[in-house]
């Protein structure tokens, strides 16, 4: 009787298994086979080393997009606040209430927009810039 671990994995199956895409019931069969078959495992581990390196080198695009989206939104908010400050300076005194909030000058906190000091908004932007994935940590 043929043992399940005698059934070698095909090259395509090893690729799918390495990337977690081999569907059941074959995935658990290949897992059992690899634990018992040195030849298949050697082939698989060689592929795994390169897969891990490629994964490590090519950052997933989705993660980067999310970060950039955050930064772009934050930058847009800052730009809007700056424009509002400029408008206040050129258009005279701000009108109370309404949206977007009008920046106001406070002796204690400097310019304040939407109840938040501009200096805090600026420091948050700086932090976001520092978190940009210029290089992997």
């Amino acid at each position: 009787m043929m043992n399940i671990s005698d059934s070698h994995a095909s090259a395509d199956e090893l690729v799918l298994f390495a990337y977690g895409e081999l569907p059941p019931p074959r995935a658990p069969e290949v897992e059992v086979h690899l634990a018992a078959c040195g030849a298949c495992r050697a082939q698989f581990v060689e592929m795994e080393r390169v897969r891990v390196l490629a994964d490590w080198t090519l950052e997933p695009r989705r993660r980067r997009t999310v970060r950039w989206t955050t930064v772009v939104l934050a930058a847009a908010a800052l730009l809007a606040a700056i424009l509002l400050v400029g408008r206040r300076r050129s258009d005279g005194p701000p009108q109370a209430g309404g949206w977007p909030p009008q920046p106001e000058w406070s002796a204690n906190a400097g310019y304040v927009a939407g109840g938040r000091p501009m200096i805090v908004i600026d420091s948050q932007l700086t932090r976001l810039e520092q978190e940009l994935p210029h290089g992997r940590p």
Partner: protein
Amino acid sequence: MPSVGQLLDEHAAALRSFLRARCGDADLTQDLMQEVALRVVQAAGRLDSGRNVRGYLFRTAANVWRDFLRREMVRRRFGEAAVEGHAPSADAMVFEEDLKAAVRQAISELPNAQREVVELRHHAGLTFREIAERLGRPLGTVLGQMRAALRKIGTAIHEHR
């Protein structure tokens, strides 16, 4: 919500099988299992009942395996001292950056059809089936191209190991 110990006990056999298939060694499997347990215990406060705990455990095991392979590459190059402790040595960091540069170079030199598959899988995160649909190629062709690409990248970085 079961305790971390209960969770690990419940999934221990499957996690051990996952790691054993990859490393092929009983003692090493045990070491890697301990690393998984350590990481899960450290993250216990962030686990909640609404989360896919089984998925989390296997992602942790996959990360432990991935980190083992990375450490192994550095160990082969510099010996055990380079991977002891939590912070990699300066030599190891330079080596890792060199390795990544070599991988980037190797990928850039792949034939277009293979490079497309590598980038769609690793960079865009598509499955092979999705890649086959997007590129209008049979799944077997896409898998063959990925295999060929991994082999070429492996050959190109061989001198760094």
